């Protein structure tokens, strides 16, 4: 009887947390104005997002044991993020282009890549994250590391210019009229690798 109550209590808490995480994701999309709902909903969605954040302990300090306990459980159960994949709309994708400048004046254009298809999918996932404002503090570090991974294979490269941007694919009608994808740079960094190596 006691074990049944424990199971029932766990069931309720577990799905309460899943509900909170999922609706936090939905409210966030509405608050950002990413949905086709009228803008009047955004204010309410923002308030609701705060409530779900409170429920998940995200309003507490980072060292708060309740916050840490909830976060650990969510990650352990794989329920730390909602299920709004490919929703509500599919934005453009992101591309990191690297211009490699050699000592002899040659310039080569490459992108960081992985050998397996599954791993390549993960790299795209990383690039999409980099565009997110929440990842702004680590953006330069990550781009530098990606550039460094390319440089390891080509140690004779003198300088790398990394350009990160959004690729907007054409709609189906535009594609039929011959329009192709366009690239809008978001930011770029120059890395002088020889100097770094000397240091």
């Amino acid at each position, binding site marked *: 009887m006691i074990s*049944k109550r424990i199971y*029932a209590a766990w069931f309720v808490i577990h799905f309460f947390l899943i509900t909170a995480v999922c609706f936090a994701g939905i409210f966030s999309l509405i608050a950002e104005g990413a949905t086709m709902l009228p803008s009047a909903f955004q204010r309410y969605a923002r308030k609701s997002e705060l409530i779900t954040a409170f429920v998940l302990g995200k309003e507490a300090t980072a060292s708060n044991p309740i916050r840490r306990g909830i*976060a650990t459980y969510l990650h352990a159960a794989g329920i*730390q993020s909602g299920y709004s994949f490919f929703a509500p*709309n599919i934005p453009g*994708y992101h591309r990191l282009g690297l211009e490699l400048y050699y000592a002899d004046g040659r310039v080569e254009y490459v992108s960081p890549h992985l050998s397996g298809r599954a791993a*390549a999918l993960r790299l795209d996932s990383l690039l999409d994250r980099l565009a997110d404002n929440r990842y702004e503090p680590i953006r330069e570090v990550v781009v530098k590391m990606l550039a460094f991974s390319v440089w390891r294979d080509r140690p004779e490269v003198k300088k790398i210019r990394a350009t990160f941007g959004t690729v907007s694919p054409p*709609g189906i009608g535009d594609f039929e009229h011959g329009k192709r994808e366009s690239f809008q740079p978001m930011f770029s960094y120059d890395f002088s690798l020889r100097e770094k190596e000397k240091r």
Partner: protein
Amino acid sequence: MSEAPQIALNSLPFALRFTPRRWWTRLLAFLFGDWHYLFASTGKGLVTRKLGEAITSFDSPLIPKLSWLVALGGYAHVGEDAVLSIAWACLLCMGVLLLLGLFSRPAAIIAWFLHLCAAESGGLFAYGADNFMTTGLFYLMLSPLPDRYSLDHRLLKVELRDPQLLGFWRRVLQVHMCFVYFIGGLAKCLGSGWWDGSNLWRSLTRPPFNLISPEILVRFKYALPILGISICLIELGYPFFIWIKKTRLFWLVCILAMHAAIGLAMGMYLFALVMIVLNLAAFGIGVSDGQSVSTQVMAGGSAEERSNVSGLAPGASPLSG
């Protein structure tokens, strides 16, 4: 090298040109290459593992990560590369053991732990399939093991434990899948692109999912809105129609077909496989005969017979058994 042997070498079939040593090197590169590249620390990998782990630690330092294993290996004077290779090999072995049903409980716990370590350490590279795998392994680890079809039970004669709990854990998975599709469907319905087919066009034409040529897609442009709306309705309707006996098989086939199509058309094979396995585990057993699971529970029977009942009918208490 003279010209004659060069011609002879070129005429050899491609596969025969490699020596066993080269084959072995290529095999190792194939098996471990991306794993090491993704999880190596500073200066060796694509992006240092430590960055992903630092972000995870911000959420909670108690979340398992590969650095724990690397630190543990350090005490035994085992290098990082060796620890990563061992972790990969262990994960593969645990997967095989789980497929066979051998040493089910320890295999499930180790598989969950190693997968969680990898998923959290590579959090920057993570996508939906990782979360679903963690969830699946989490439920599996807590479920009553071994299963009646496992080699643990058949060969090693390990007794089945708490067969009635199997129904509870299956119900947990069923409810979870309903959440997944309801939220997914709701979020899609809120985007205009799923109603006019433009989201389907964008998802099928963006790299790395662009396996189908856009020229072919253009030919079926009138089908895209229908398919987009169908996806919304299938996902949103899942938590309702999957419980109704008459519509269960149809809805399950629709959702499985949707995942198979995603896997084949977008190259998301792992994601498709994980979702198909989870759906079959939740609603696949006994769906074809249309028999209510509660009927089997009511019929009672031996522990082994009851272990066959791996779910409860809608409305029945998940804790009864």
